[in-house]
């Protein structure tokens, strides 16, 4: 019954989209067929066309695309009124009035019952109070400097805004050419197809769109977010190439600008500060100790107990860093939420990482900054603890790296993978 009402007969019983008078067409049609001998030829011809139209639209899954059923709606409603009038025209004035009142109530009820839908569209289209249109994103796609005319986009959105509003190349996710991508069983080959065979550089995605899990995996791990629109549009750039792991190792391990970043050297003893690091006034003897169990990189890490302190390294060759971008990464573990972070201070400006969420796991914190050309010092505070009054809070620090340039954690994870996930 439900299948019939909601599917095959939805033109007559989908009150939200076709009003609540359309069902009257069914008894009228039965009445028409019963009295067919009295009917004129043109009436039978119209009934013939109508019935075959209904059957065709049902066969083309019209019920699952109500826009197809809309084809018949004005005709059905007009016929109901015309035939209905023929039926009641010889009745009394009161009878007419009664029918009119019943119909009016039914119509008003429909408007009232689905008022939120009408209200939404009225606001959305007629009053246009809210801006649902991704103006900025489309502008960025058209104008941003590094999007050259050869860039190809993978378009994952039901709203076909891309081709109408931009001058870029875009392959729709449902384009038959995407079959080769969808046939891939793992992320590596799929990414290879995406980059090398389909030559896609960017992914344009709306949050409602549901691409397959491999594409989602690619978006999470192999793309950088270029722009996020307030209405849920995202623009991602596929990374041009996987980072060269030897190069990463050289950069992050050998060329790190911090000395003793993995806290392996403790020449003054395990209960003194590690080599090259110092604390401010609030780091007292015994607060920083060598840790052998909770370790992320190498054999040791640093365990710091206390409150309201900076644990830092002062870069000596200041002139080398003036005006340059730096990135600092530090592995941090703590149970205390929102207390610890990294800070880079150049005498003028401070840059901070996010705070550790305090879930008791090792988290890789990261801070990017550009050193002021007039910098008077460059101090890397690998841990800065906010004052909370709790002097027994503990934090473990390990694997602190400082590199020139703008980097993100992805590259460090890539390096970690090479090293068996330990680093």
């Amino acid at each position, binding site marked *: 019954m439900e299948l019939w009402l909601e599917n095959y007969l939805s033109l007559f019983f989908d009150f939200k989209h076709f009003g609540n008078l359309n069902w009257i067409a069914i008894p009228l049609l039965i009445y028409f067929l019963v009295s067919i001998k009295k009917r004129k030829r*043109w009436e039978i*011809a119209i009934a013939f066309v109508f019935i*075959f139209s209904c059957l065709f639209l049902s066969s083309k899954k019209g019920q699952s695309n109500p*826009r197809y059923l809309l084809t018949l*709606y004005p005709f059905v*409603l007009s016929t109901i009124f015309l035939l209905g009038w023929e039926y009641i025209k010889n009745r009394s004035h009161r009878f007419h009035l009664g029918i009119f009142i019943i119909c009016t109530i039914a119509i008003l009820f429909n408007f009232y019952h689905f008022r939120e*839908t009408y209200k939404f569209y009225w606001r959305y289209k007629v009053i246009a109070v809210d801006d649902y249109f991704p103006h900025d994103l489309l502008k960025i796609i058209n104008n941003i400097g590094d999007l050259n005319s050869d860039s190809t986009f993978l378009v994952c959105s039901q709203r076909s*805004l891309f081709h109408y509003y931009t001058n870029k190349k*875009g392959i729709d996710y449902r384009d038959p050419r995407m079959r080769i991508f969808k046939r891939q069983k793992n992320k590596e080959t799929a990414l290879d197809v995406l980059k090398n065979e389909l030559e896609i550089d960017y992914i344009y995605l709306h949050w409602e769109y549901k691409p397959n899990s491999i594409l989602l995996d690619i978006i999470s791990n192999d793309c950088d977010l270029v722009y996020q629109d307030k209405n849920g549009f995202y623009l991602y750039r596929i990374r041009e190439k996987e980072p060269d792991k030897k190069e990463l190792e050289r950069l992050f391990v050998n060329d790190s600008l911090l000395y003793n970043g993995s806290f392996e050297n403790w020449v003054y003893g395990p209960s003194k500060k590690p080599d090259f690091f110092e604390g401010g006034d609030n780091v007292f003897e015994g607060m920083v100790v060598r840790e052998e169990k909770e370790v992320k990189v190498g054999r040791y890490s640093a365990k710091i107990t206390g409150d309201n302190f900076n644990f830092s390294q002062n870069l000596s060759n200041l002139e080398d860093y003036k005006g340059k971008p730096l990135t600092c990464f530090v592995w941090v573990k703590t149970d205390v939420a929102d207390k610890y972070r990294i800070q880079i201070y150049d005498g003028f400006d401070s840059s901070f990482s996010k705070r550790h969420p305090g879930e008791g796991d090792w988290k890789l914190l990261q801070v990017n900054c550009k050193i002021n050309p007039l910098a008077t010092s460059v101090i890397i505070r690998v841990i800065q603890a906010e004052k909370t009054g709790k002097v027994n809070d503990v934090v473990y620090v390990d694997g602190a790296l400082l590199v020139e340039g703008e980097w993100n954690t992805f590259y460090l994870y890539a390096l970690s993978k090479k090293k068996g996930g330990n680093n």
Partner: protein
Amino acid sequence: MILFSLQFILTNIIFSIIICTVLIRLDKEKMHSNLELLLYSLGLGPVFTSLLLYYLLLFFPHHSNLFYILGIFIIYLILSFLGRKYFSDLLIDGNKKIKKIKNIFNNLSPSHQTKSIIITSFLILFLVSFLFLYITNTLQTPLDGTDALRYGTLGKIFFTEKSLEYRWIRPYPKTCFYMPYNHAPSFSLLLTWEKTMGSFFNADKDLYYKSLSTYYALLILSILIFWLSKKNKYLALLGVFALLSGFYFFETLITQHLDSYRIFFLIISWIFLAYSIEKKDFLSFLLLGIFSGFAAFAHTIGAVLVVFNCLALFIFLKGNLKYKLKKTTSVTLLVIAFGWLHYILDIFWGYGWIIFKRETTWWG
């Protein structure tokens, strides 16, 4: 906005009136009222312009904008020459109708007069408020919605390439645009027409294209009012609100889509199917063929449903077999000329339409 008004008045009003005068000329037996013909003709201006552009781009591709505009204007000039004597008929009829309404109004009792004024004022206020909001807000919002954007992109491609070639080559190599539908491109060509006209004013707008859904939805409402008011004016009023209480129809008034456009032609084709069987006059057969053709030219659904029109005509037309065959063949040829041709081209040289469903095309 001025350009939009110009395009709207030219394409939807002036071109439609020109077509209407030709239809009045062809209605030698005076079987149809001029007002009724005018009402139906108001939907013909845009689609006939689209059809002319279709044939021009099909047979004479890669010419300048001026070539296509002149081609269309020349045809309308010829049509206005053919219907020149009937412009005055239309005006006289309009005056008569106004006088008739005045007389009816004057003969009403004062209480009925007040009631009529209130109802008319209410309707006019309702329509004017809607149109004001529509023109100042709705029309100004960017084109949105999957289908309208896809048809629009195709229209832009036709404008850029000055050819229909890319209706049969997908994806479009310059942008990789992939159009998954096989419908005839009449709706898209209206954007091509807007852009072609706009090119002379250095304008790159789509206001006219965006207004089509509302225009045809209002025409459908007018047809409903026209038929129901013949029975009773309150019935017509009730019919309008009943139609709007179906959210899908309400949506066609404020969003940009081709639904109201394609439905309009189909409904009128059914009206003329009834007329053809009942009255058997020349104009009814002609308009059955034309409106059925345009229903096909607007959408694939129309292309299938008008086949039932031809079948119904053949089965239910009174007369001997020769007469029935002659009339059905004439109507079928008209259907082909006014839109179904696209699907024939598509079946044999294109994607195979709904018959073969080829991925690649012979055109490409």
